């Protein structure tokens, strides 16, 4: 089962999963690639949020993140960063575009 993050409900990676599903990949390979997609998006989003926070707020955010209390994470970053939802969605979309391009290149 894929891990849920505090932003999972606003990010849709199904287009990438479906595209991989159309490729000639074994289930194991597909699973591994999906985990790479998730991790790439996750790290971009973390960088986005951390870059918007002060040193002290970074630590508070990481503490909330570690507790996996998604409501607390959301409440905190909404208070600290303007339009954070839109920013997260845009960041994820940018990563998805890049990854789609990679798939296109590989497919030839």
């Amino acid at each position, binding site marked *: 089962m894929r*891990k849920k*993050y505090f932003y999972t409900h606003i990010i849709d990676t199904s287009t990438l999963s479906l595209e991989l599903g159309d*490729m*000639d*990949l*074994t*289930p*194991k*390979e597909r*699973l*591994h*690639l999906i*985990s*790479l*997609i998730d*991790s*790439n998006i*996750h*790290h*971009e989003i*973390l*960088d986005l949020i*951390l*870059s918007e926070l002060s*040193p002290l707020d*970074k*630590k508070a955010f*990481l*503490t909330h*993140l*570690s*507790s*996996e209390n998604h409501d607390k994470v959301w409440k905190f970053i909404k208070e600290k960063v303007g339009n954070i939802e839109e920013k997260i969605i845009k960041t994820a979309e940018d990563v998805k575009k*890049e*990854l789609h391009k*990679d*798939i296109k290149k*590989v*497919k030839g």
Partner: protein
Amino acid sequence: MTKSHYKQLSSRWRARHQNLQRKLWGKHKEALDWLSNGHRQLISGSLGGLMLLTGQISNSLPAINVAKAQATITQKVDKEVFLISDLEHILPEDVRPLSTEEEQKISEILSRNYGIKVAPELEGKRLNRSYGFIGAEQHLTRYPGDNLSSHFDSGEDAKLYWQQGMAPGLGAWSYFALSKEELTKEDKDREEYYIAVQTFLSEDFNSRFTEYRDFYKYRKMLVVNPNNGRAIVADIADAGPAVWTGKHLGGSPEVMHYLERVDGSLKGPVLYFFIDDPNDKIKLGPILSLPNV
């Protein structure tokens, strides 16, 4: 062309991910270091934290079934997370002696999680407490003439544990062996994984001295860092620390290293429970994996 597609994509995305990690750590090093060092208990209890710090990405598709491998990793992490979470719900916020009810619950959790029967009291004997601050002890002299030059089996061990030095006196039970030639693997393990506990604070210690002495000698205890789930089977080989230190037990350099506990202002608590091992079946040392329970 399955292999080619997969190889190309995984190679690109792994590289991308590694660059991201480097960038993340480069830009936010202070906060991430703070999380991984000062607040390790947080990340240890968190799958998200683990992923944040490790990347959680394998470098290549393993030869074995990936789904199975991931499930195994998840199960292991889940068990540790559940253990830490279970303990967190029972342990008090301050490091104080546990109540009988708390000890009972924790004994059950530890016994279940580690597959070892543990208890705060054995054969009608108990220490003054089962939850307390652990401090760093030094290496004990195992036989006459043992010193830092002869103490380590490998250069790596020496590098890791040299600086803690040798205790000026002998352990509570004197030497582990009468000579280097007579030193067995069991003796080595007993020194390597020893703890010092406040035997002298046991109830009626002075009036039951002989009884306690025989009971405590190399008695096995399960020592657990409740903040990261690390556990080690240790043996009692010394008495201490003194009450005024504010610490409640001491660990050998190897025990402290494995439990990821340090002395001084950053000292932290551990749980320490007797192991019921009448047939001497349980080996000393770290418990590296949780059994399937």
